[in-house]
């Protein structure tokens, strides 16, 4: 490690200052992260591909050649979720079906930060096609949570979240369709934000559910989140659903919440939140009041229908989006086929993993003749009700808060046999995707040695309000714990006791 640089604690804000003041070189900074990858990546497996050579070479170029022409984020080591295409760098989307796909173009969000001269460290692991809540659906093996290697990092942006938590990247880009940035951020103890739908171009983001997908940052602090977000937002002619924000993303400085009204939806707090998570949530709500804001109970009465509606809409869109993977133009092609139809069927049957097949099947079933109105048509109407719930609530309050995930990180393999129990992980995060709203998760403490996430949701295009509030709250929470890379299975073996899910008590903060 370069003297004085601790990759588990360094923020982008501080790294940028050190670079600007000439206290460190970009090559030293990148080496710090590559060294950390060398130390912990075999335990964590946050990356599908580490582009170490290119990263080191590029950082050296920044030091030698750029000088005054350095971009706004020059030299900051970054992980990119592997569902964003990167020209000349293999992109897998966590799937076997893309083979060793070499994209001929780069996603707009990535192109923008490349233009700011970030250093890409590699492509982060994810659930195949971003479908999952644990990163266990990756065709390249699961990512392990750096806080406890026997648990999942959440998903689908589990690689991005674990890389930031483990000090294997300064920050990362992820994508969020039903919680895929916020839930892994919560489970890994980092900050994760899903912007308003349309704020960030989806061009080059391999499509899962186009009306829900949104790219966003995973970072160590709220300030860093704003720093990265402000460089990726904006209208893009290549994505007709992208829009210009009403104003620039501001770098947050707020320390107080005076005059703000926060809503606590009774339906979220009732929804099977585990006691340790609920305790941290309630402590954080008390801090909000100490900072000068008022908290009131509100109702989002259709919350219980959001999850079932999501599991019609997202798979329906996915079944159409994933039709393009047919073994003709790119990726894997089965050798076990005598004619064209057999080639399609064998390629897709062999190339997609079980969860992707399930979603394609649910989606196609919900769209098929005789069921379209009963499923897809009705789900779209539920989506209207979920939106209206938020509209009504935001007439009374400025922001809404909830736990990000009902539980802390769960054990690897503990939910894979039951898809529905896995889907429940996203019960607090899915509604804002249906409504297109922005939301952020920040760490608010530990429960059972594992991080707990606190979610703040806002009206459309309220990013600056959200970031300011999250920044003030982050300061009051003062979360300073870092992961230990322990494996509670080993600890349990040594003590001759049970694994972490049944170990009670323990110090908490």
């Amino acid at each position, binding site marked *: 490690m370069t003297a004085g640089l601790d990759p588990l604690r360094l923020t982008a804000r501080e790294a940028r200052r050190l670079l600007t003041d000439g206290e460190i070189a970009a090559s030293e900074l990148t080496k710090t992260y590559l060294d950390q990858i060398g130390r912990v990546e075999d335990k964590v497996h946050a990356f599908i591909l580490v582009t170490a050579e290119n990263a080191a070479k590029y950082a050296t170029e920044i030091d030698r050649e750029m000088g005054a022409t350095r971009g706004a984020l020059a030299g900051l080591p970054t992980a990119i979720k592997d569902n964003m295409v990167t020209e000349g760098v293999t992109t897998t989307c966590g799937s076997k079906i893309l*083979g060793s796909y*070499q994209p*001929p*173009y780069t996603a707009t969000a990535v192109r923008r930060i490349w233009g700011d001269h970030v250093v890409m460290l590699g492509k982060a692991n994810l659930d195949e096609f971003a479908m999952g809540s644990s990163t266990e659906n990756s065709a390249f093996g699961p990512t392990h949570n750096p806080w406890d290697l026997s648990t999942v990092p959440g998903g689908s942006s589990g690689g991005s979240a674990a890389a930031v938590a483990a000090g294997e990247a300064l920050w990362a880009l992820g994508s969020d369709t039903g919680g895929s940035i916020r839930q892994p951020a919560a489970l890994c103890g980092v900050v994760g934000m899903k912007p308003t*739908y*349309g704020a960030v171009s989806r061009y080059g983001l391999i499509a899962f559910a186009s*009306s829900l997908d949104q790219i966003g940052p995973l970072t160590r602090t709220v300030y860093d989140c704003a720093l990265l977000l402000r460089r990726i937002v904006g209208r893009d*002619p290549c994505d*007709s*659903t992208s829009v210009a924000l009403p104003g620039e993303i501001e770098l947050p400085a707020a320390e107080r919440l005076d005059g703000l009204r926060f809503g606590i939806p009774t339906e979220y707090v009732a929804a099977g939140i585990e006691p340790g998570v609920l305790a941290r949530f309630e402590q954080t709500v008390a801090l909000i009041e100490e900072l000068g804001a008022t908290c009131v109970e509100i109702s989002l009465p*259709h919350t*219980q*229908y959001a*999850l*079932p509606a999501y*599991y*019609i809409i997202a798979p329906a869109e996915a*079944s159409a989006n994933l039709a393009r993977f*047919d*073994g*003709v*133009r*790119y*990726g894997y*092609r089965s050798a076990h*086929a*005598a*004619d064209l*139809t*057999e*080639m*399609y*069927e*064998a390629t*897709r*049957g062999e190339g*997609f993993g079980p969860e992707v*097949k*399930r979603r*394609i*099947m*649910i989606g*196609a*079933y919900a769209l*098929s003749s005789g069921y379209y109105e009963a499923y897809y*048509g*009705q*789900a*779209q*109407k*539920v*989506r*209207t*009700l979920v*939106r209206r719930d938020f509209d009504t609530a935001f007439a009374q309050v400025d922001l809404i808060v909830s736990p990000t995930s009902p539980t802390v990180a769960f054990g690897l393999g503990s939910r894979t046999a039951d*898809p*529905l129990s896995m*889907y429940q992980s996203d019960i607090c995060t899915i509604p804002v995707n*249906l409504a*297109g709203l922005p939301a952020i998760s920040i760490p608010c403490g530990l429960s059972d040695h594992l991080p707990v996430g606190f979610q703040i949701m806002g009206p459309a295009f309220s990013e600056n309000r959200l970031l300011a509030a999250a920044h003030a709250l982050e300061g009051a929470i003062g979360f300073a714990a870092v992961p230990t890379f322990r494996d509670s299975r080993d600890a349990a073996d040594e003590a001759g006791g049970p694994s972490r899910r049944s170990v009670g008590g323990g110090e908490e903060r």
Partner: protein
Amino acid sequence: MISRDDVRHVARLTRLRLGAAETDRMTAELAKILEHIDKIGELDLAAVEPTAHVLAVADVVRPDKPRPSLPRDEALRNAPAVSDDCFRVPRMQP
């Protein structure tokens, strides 16, 4: 209740080859997921307008100007099989 035949039918529609054991497992899993989804049947939605998309943007157009497209060799570079500057696929009938 979704049947094994329904699952085979949808698998054909989506061009997914499922083995016998996979079809059985899929039938059981989809039944359980659909049972959860059926919860929305509790709601009276007759008077509710559907939401297909959350943004109030419509008719986004760009100038109708020709632009260069992806060069042919770039477009073919990732293909599993190429012949005569085209994507090559197995014949329609064996």
